[in-house]
């Protein structure tokens, strides 16, 4: 043992603090605010989904060509699917029981795994549902307007590049989290 051990602990214990405090009323207010923010965020998501469904519903009605109409219907259906997934996966969540009852290492692992699962699966339920509709819409436009091949191909290329980039970034981030999860084994091993 070195002589600086007790002194550092003493220094740590005696460091100046600001006297941060929250009254019960403030805590309740913040908890209520958190719930309201979560509900508002969900409502914005649902409203956005509703608008997308309306817009692509109108496309399905007005755009020429069967493929374009069908593609618009599929985009609207994909939006409804994503909206349902958001509701199912996120919703209004309270603090998980794990946060208070679990040891720190168990909680940290659970948090890393939750984040990794989200990153691994987000492309599947947040991006992929739009692909059939977009592909069909663009293919319909490609078939219907022979003079607009280049712009349609450009849009298709940008969409494909965006989807691949998001997928790759999420896979990369998920792999980094998995590495951290694997390293947690070392904490139990010594």
């Amino acid at each position, binding site marked *: 043992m070195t002589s600086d051990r007790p002194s550092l602990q003493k220094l740590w214990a005696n460091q100046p*603090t600001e006297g941060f*405090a929250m009254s019960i009323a403030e805590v309740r207010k913040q908890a209520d605010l958190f719930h309201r923010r979560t509900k508002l965020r969900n409502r914005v998501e649902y409203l956005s989904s509703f608008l997308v469904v309306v817009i692509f519903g109108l496309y399905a009605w007005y755009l020429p060509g069967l493929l374009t109409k069908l593609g618009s219907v599929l985009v609207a259906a994909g939006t409804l699917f994503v909206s349902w997934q958001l509701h199912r996966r996120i919703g209004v969540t309270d603090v998980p029981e794990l*946060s208070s009852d679990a040891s720190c290492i168990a*909680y940290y692992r659970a948090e890393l795994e939750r984040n990794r699962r989200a990153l691994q699966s987000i492309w599947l339920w947040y991006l992929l549902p739009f692909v059939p509709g977009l592909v069909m819409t663009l293919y319909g436009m490609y078939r219907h307007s022979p003079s607009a091949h280049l712009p349609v191909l450009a849009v298709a290329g940008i969409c494909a590049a965006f989807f691949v980039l998001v997928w790759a970034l999420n896979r990369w981030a998920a792999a980094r989290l998995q590495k951290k999860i694997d390293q947690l084994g070392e904490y139990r091993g010594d």
Partner: protein
Amino acid sequence: MSGIGQDARYTEAVAEYGHALERLAQGYEADRDLRRDLLQDIHLALWRSFALFDGRCSLRTWVYRVAHNAAASYVITRRRARFETLIDLETLERADPEPGPEEMANAHQVLSKLQALIRRLKPPDAQVMLLYLEDMDAPAIGEVTGLSPGAVSVRIHRIKAILANQFQEGGPHDI
């Protein structure tokens, strides 16, 4: 637990561990405003947690678990946003001490260096270091963190070596 019991338990916990929670937040966040946000998150998590408190562990263990868990969630989100890389005790053990003792002119500088050092650590190591600095013994640290007594002992040994290396014995912080 009733709302009144929840409130009373929260008030009791803050009265007893309020300053320790601030020190804990210092070990996770350097920015003053962000630290206040973190402290607010911790207090909120603590108040909510007391709806579930059943006395299976001591109040101290419960408070530190909730607070460190809230801080770990914060670190995961923040580090991902800032693309920061955290290190473990083994890596820190191999690092050269900096700055030199001549630059460690007063207790404030020593404390700042100590806080900065903790913020570089991965959450499980930061937790052990912070609990050690709060003068908790190995079994108590094990109860909070979930690490085995052997794992805690090894980490405390490393922490002592790191502190001895980074904050040289008999320095001006020896108050």
